[in-house]
């Protein structure tokens, strides 16, 4: 049970002995992970096991009841804004404003990131990479579920960040888009980026570490 999966001390982003308390119950306890540049972590577990909850802790949305999350050996809670600057998060919802065009939506999020400047090209190429270049000037309200998801994914391609936290990112995607996503993740890792991803899909990413959250259930019989 107290299987910490501690990586080498070279790991950049680590969690130790995490306890997650949510909705009045302990979801998991004693959970640990470690991520180094270029690595991917796949979160596995049945419905309600706490995949989404773990990703939110990693993002700093909420604090663990116990345990520590560190980046280069410093707690991420010490400087939340610095942590924010180095991560991208994809949750269950797709924040696409219906009255803004796809480009306007992306531009807003990109201008909040450090070192974005005037990267119109970055936006256009992110859209191309996800196969929605033709939607650039379409207002968000005309998009279907899968198209919105693609816009949300384009957001994280438009401005760089070293840690990607993806919660079931392939939801609503068709097969072409799923392929695009896989390619983008591979590119990101090749450039030294890190990914933590939750998924129910059978197939995995290449060379990904797997973390079965069910092992850390607090109330397992």
């Amino acid at each position, binding site marked *: 049970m107290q299987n910490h999966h501690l990586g080498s001390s070279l790991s950049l982003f680590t969690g130790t002995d995490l306890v997650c308390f949510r909705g009045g119950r302990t979801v998991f306890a004693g959970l640990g992970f470690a991520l180094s540049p270029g690595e991917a972590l796949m979160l596995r577990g049945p419905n309600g096991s706490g995949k989404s909850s773990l990703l939110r802790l990693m*993002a*700093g*949305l*909420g604090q663990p009841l116990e345990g520590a999350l560190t980046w280069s050996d410093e707690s991420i809670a010490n400087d939340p*804004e*610095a942590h*924010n*600057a180095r*991560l991208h*998060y994809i*949750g*269950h*919802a*797709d*924040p*696409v*404003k219906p*009255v*803004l065009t796809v480009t*306007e939506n992306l531009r*807003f*999020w990109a*201008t*909040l*990131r*450090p070192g974005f400047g005037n990267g119109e090209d970055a936006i256009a190429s992110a859209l191309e990479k996800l196969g929605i270049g033709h939607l650039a000037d379409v207002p968000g309200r005309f998009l279907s579920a899968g198209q919105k998801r693609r816009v949300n994914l384009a957001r994280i391609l438009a401005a760089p960040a070293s840690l990607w936290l993806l919660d079931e990112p392939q939801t609503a995607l068709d097969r072409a888009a799923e392929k695009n996503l896989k390619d983008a993740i591979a590119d990101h890792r090749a450039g030294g980026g890190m990914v933590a991803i939750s998924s129910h899909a059978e197939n995995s990413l290449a060379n990904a570490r797997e973390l079965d959250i069910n092992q850390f259930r607090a109330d397992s019989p």
Partner: protein
Amino acid sequence: MNGFLAIVRRDLRLAFRQGLDSLMVVAFFVIAVVLFPFGVGPQPNTLARIAPGVIWVAALLASMLSLERLFQTDYEDGSLELLALQPVALEITVMAKVTVHWLTTGLPLIVAAPLLGVLMNLPEDGYMPLMIALTLGTPTLSLIGAIGAALILGSRRGGILLSLLVLPLYIPVLIFGVSAVDVVIGGFSAKPQLLILSGLLVGALPLCPWAGAAAVRQGLE
């Protein structure tokens, strides 16, 4: 500062694209005030007697009603979560939203107030202090309201709960706002009242974004 401006620009654009937002607040303001002659009867001197109070109460209600959506839409489509994960302090984000709220509702209310003064037979001396008091008071309403709007995120009830939280805290603004008009009509100077209104504003300015950010943070957990 950059982040502040980017958020203000986006929210203003959203407000203008969605159109009519400010117009609707003004319309509510007018309707709420107009209900009174129906309720109280149209005798000019009764109306004049209660004019400042009715105008202020209507302004309170209009401001409160429009507050409900301050964070709500961003919360629902996941934007708020994402805003909290940007390298911009959440206090700044809250302040930006409050600013836009005031620009799109407080300001139009101030512009519309003289018209309502005419409808309600407000004595001539009252216009000047009414405008000044509204200018000092409405930003405070937006600031206080932001806390309430953040607290109700994710709750099962919207407007009615918000009103219960916010209206009691609005009462000081109401008291001094009305009294500023009344004393001038009565022939005295409104300086003490206006000073207190400024004091309330200066007090709310640092406190409310801070408390609002805390409320948003726990709402996202």
